[in-house]
């Protein structure tokens, strides 16, 4: 991949939509292989690709896993604009453009031998999923594994089967909550931060990975800190406008960092002071 990228980092390569998975009303997952069906390269959980819909445009999307059957990359996308709408219309066998993978990933090695807390908000579960897959593949190398997941409504919750698998088969403490629900929902309602005190982990030996809307991540960090996890054991995945993904276009600057190459995954204590500044 590296040598191909060197040629022209701004030129998307063709990838084939091997399958389309419908997740919720507005969210779907594309399974992408090479045009010839080959499995794409290695990636670090937390990294993202720039996906290009022909004639429409490009968007950064985190890799949400790898398909066990085709070996293809999974990209879970919520339809929020023109490009994601075009991607939503893609059918099996269709071709899209792709550049990547780019950026930093979740430091899973650092969590080995420790407890690990995943906190996800909304579509933020997607970039965490491949990290959970790694944990699942070597479960015995981790202590307590906790997944706290908040979403807007019960209908917008993602990856139910997998969450159940992690809970039942891999001993993951999975706690889910939604912001609002009708009476038919018999599970938690409330903010994702309220789940922290209902779980057990050893704060002195825990690494936390958070992904979700920025506001949700701020509150989550505060809650985890209160529970005793030090700031340098908390990692968050940031998001900003992005055009090039390689540090040329300047759009994704966040304080002195570029989200595209210094992030998207940052250790919290390293960006705390910039997070505190409004409109930075």
């Amino acid at each position, binding site marked *: 991949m590296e040598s191909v990228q060197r040629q022209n980092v701004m030129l998307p390569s063709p990838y084939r939509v091997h399958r389309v998975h419908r997740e919720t009303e507005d969210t779907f997952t594309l399974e992408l292989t090479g045009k010839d069906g080959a499995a794409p390269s290695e990636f670090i959980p937390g990294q993202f690709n720039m996906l290009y819909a022909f004639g429409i445009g490009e968007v950064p999307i985190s890799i949400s896993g790898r398909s066990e059957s085709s070996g293809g990359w999974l990209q879970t996308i919520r339809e929020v604009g023109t490009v994601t709408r075009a991607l939503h219309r893609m059918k099996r066998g269709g071709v899209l453009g792709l550049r990547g993978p780019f950026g930093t990933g979740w430091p899973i090695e650092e969590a080995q031998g420790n407890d690990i807390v995943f906190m996800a908000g909304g579509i933020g579960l997607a970039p965490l999923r491949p990290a959970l897959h790694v944990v699942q593949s070597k479960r015995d190398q981790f202590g307590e594994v906790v997944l706290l997941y908040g979403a*807007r409504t019960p209908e*917008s919750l993602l990856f139910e089967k997998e969450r159940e698998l992690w809970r039942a088969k891999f001993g993951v403490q999975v706690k889910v909550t939604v912001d*609002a629900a*009708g*009476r038919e*929902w*018999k599970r938690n*309602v409330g*903010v994702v931060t309220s789940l922290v005190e209902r779980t057990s982990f050893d704060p002195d030996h825990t690494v936390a990975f958070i992904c*979700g809307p920025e506001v949700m991540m701020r509150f989550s960090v505060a809650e985890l800190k209160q529970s005793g996890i030090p700031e340098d054991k908390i990692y968050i995945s940031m998001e900003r406008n992005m055009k090039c993904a390689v540090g040329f276009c300047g759009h994704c600057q966040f304080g002195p960092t570029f989200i595209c190459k210094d992030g998207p995954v940052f250790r919290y204590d390293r960006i705390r002071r910039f997070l505190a500044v409004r409109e930075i």
Partner: protein
Amino acid sequence: METLEPILSKHPFFKGLDKAYLELVTGCAKNVRFDAGQFIFRQHEDADVFYIIRQGKVALELSPPGRAPVTLQTINEEEILGWAWLVPPYHWRCDAQALELTRAIAFDGKCLRNKCMEDHSLGFELLNRLLPVIGKRMEATQLQLMDVYGAKK
């Protein structure tokens, strides 16, 4: 009644409370249970009681006229249900419904608040424990209001 004191003394809500006060609080406490679907209290009713949930799950709900009920928050094991008993005008602000079989310790809030009027130290101790519960609930409401997961189009 004495059987509840060791349980209460260990609960975070009463942690550090003076022994005399703890005995007084224990004197106002009893075990209760609610079946799934049973309403524990209803909006606008007098709030004369509060609970520590020991087992089960309770939904705080609003039922806007002409619309389906909305669950605002769920209260789980070890958490405090109800703060309106100590905040005038002592009316419940929403409905509370047990989502499953729920066991709780119920406290006579009316009795306790009268004691608080007489003994402001007790009043301070209880308010000091209850205000964070209200604060957290308010913060949660603010977060929900921001609708952070919502898709802006």
